[in-house]
């Protein structure tokens, strides 16, 4: 295995509506390229309305109009076979979903059927991919739960009998039971308390290392990224503005937005005031010309208002800024 599991190239996904002759276009994902290697956790960070969710929806090919993919490609590589996800037929898509490409979603309450036992959710999602007699499948599910340090009796529980953290763990078990190569995790710990959050993250980390799969982990919480992600991409207003190894990004943030995000993180034990960033994220229906960050950027100059900076840089640390901080020599 050498190539990346996921290669996204020049992806543009816009929401296009037209009502009473008024056309509106929201450029939620604009020219995003990234790749995810085997056996790594790729973190995707950005504030709300930065296009994170739109990006993962298009990556999973789980979207409906008015969202449209205008350009670019999303190619998965599962065991040497290439899948261009936007040109697959519905049947082929159904065959790779869950088996190769699975999801951990935010609202675990919405994933598990509230009126059926957890066992039924396992059967609905995974049985057809694994096949064989049903009792054998349930044995496998029990073993899988045990491996994740969950009680096998959970299969007989209803979702409302489990706590929020427990339900989230069940959805992780559900997403990993087929041992997929690629897992998309959309804010899986955002609704949880700090104590439960740490346990759930530990479980995601453990299961990723055990299966050797890749995870695209989306959250706005930079502290979670610092502790979990191998590589990190920062999105701002629909564009990827910086990407690199998490440690490099935290030690030497090159884009002014990343630098601000990291500097403004509240840390237990701080008593000096942190500065907020002036202004607000741009409206994606009418984004500013040039670099989309320039109205809020302390380093903005003329060129930032006119031209769009490309994501570039050597040694895997790429940044889209005309005034990026120099790369560290270390």
């Amino acid at each position, binding site marked *: 295995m050498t190539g990346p599991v996921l290669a996204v190239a020049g992806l543009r996904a816009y929401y296009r509506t037209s009502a009473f002759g008024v056309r509106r276009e929201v450029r939620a994902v604009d020219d995003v390229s990234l790749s995810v290697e085997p056996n790594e956790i790729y973190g995707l960070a950005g504030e709300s309305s930065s296009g994170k969710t739109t990006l993962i929806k298009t990556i999973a090919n789980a979207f409906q109009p008015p969202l449209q993919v205008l350009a670019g490609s999303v190619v998965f590589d599962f065991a040497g076979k290439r899948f261009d996800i936007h040109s697959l037929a519905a049947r082929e898509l159904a065959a790779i979903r869950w088996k190769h490409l699975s999801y951990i979603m935010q609202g675990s309450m919405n994933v598990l059927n509230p009126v059926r036992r957890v066992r039924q959710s396992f059967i609905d999602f995974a049985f057809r991919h694994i096949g064989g007699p049903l009792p054998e499948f349930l044995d496998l599910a029990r073993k899988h739960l045990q491996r994740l340090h969950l009680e096998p009796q959970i299969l007989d529980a209803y979702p409302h009998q489990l706590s929020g953290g427990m339900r989230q763990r069940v959805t992780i078990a559900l997403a990993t039971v087929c041992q997929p190569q690629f897992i998309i995790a959309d804010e899986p710990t955002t609704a949880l308390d700090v104590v439960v959050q740490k346990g759930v993250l530990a479980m995601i980390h453990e299961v990723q290392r055990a299966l050797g799969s890749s995870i695209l982990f989306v959250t706005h919480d930079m502290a979670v990224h610092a502790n979990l992600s191998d590589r990190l991409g920062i999105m701002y207003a629909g564009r990827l503005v910086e990407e690199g190894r998490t440690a490099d990004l935290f030690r030497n943030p090159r884009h002014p937005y990343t630098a601000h995000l990291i500097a403004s993180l509240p840390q237990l034990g*701080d008593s000096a005031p942190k500065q907020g960033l002036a202004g607000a994220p741009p409206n994606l229906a009418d984004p500013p010309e040039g670099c989309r960050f320039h109205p809020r950027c302390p380093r903005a100059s003329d060129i930032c208002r006119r031209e769009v900076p490309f994501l570039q840089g050597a040694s895997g640390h790429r940044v889209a800024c005309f005034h990026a901080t120099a790369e560290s020599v270390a």
Partner: protein
Amino acid sequence: MSAPLLEVDAVSRVYSRGSLLSRRSFAAVDGVSFRLESSRAEIFTVVGESGSGKTTLARMILGMVLPSAGAIRFKGRDLSTIHGRRARLEFMQKVQPVFQNPFEAFNPMKRVDRYLFATARRMTGLTDASAIAGATDGALGSVGLSLAEVRGRFPHELSGGQLQRVAIARALLCNPALLVADEPVSMIDASLRASIVNLLRDLRDRLAVSIIYITHDLATAYFISDRLLIMRRGQAVETGEARAVLDRPQHPYSQLLKASVLPPDVPSEPGARLKSEPMIRHGASHA
């Protein structure tokens, strides 16, 4: 010695559920006590996981829910003795809420400035349009906005951070003595969060408003609060001077809470801090 600003005296709130035959009761808040002095403005923080009774406590302090046992006294007056429109308005003028999600707190079909004008008219007794506009502009000024920026705008035209500032400005219009802020930053983007937290601190120092800050975020709690109360399942497990409590938590739950906060820097080895400890793994496994 004047009466304390707020005295929460062994307050409990019991909710019961079930049918006539199988009644089950559950204490959302169970015997919590604390007091805020009127001599100095302070930020009193209530920390706890979800379901620990933080919000129920806030609703009782705001007089929206009456306690099942115990009493809450604001400037010596028991909240359960407030009856009638006049007394109620007088109380509301002094104790103002700021809610978690500003987009839910404002009606999306209504212009934001109308809330401000209506509050000014009702709470400050001003009738003259230019005086109302002046008072509104003053309140917006103290949160770093101006009336010109907000006039005629709908909630969706403002960012979450701006809208939360407007919500705080609305509360400040009445010159309150106490703000009850229930998770005021948890719905706000990281790049704007710091400015709201700084604003709360600034209000305490400049306008001498006491603030009850309810949160689950220990880092901001450490940063702005004077005193702190940690709640778990309705009970106060630890209270005291905020930094002392967070630097050296005594109760096992407080220690667990502190240990669970992920520091925002990269560990030497990826995932080093995510070794799951048995206590954490089973800590939340109750249904």
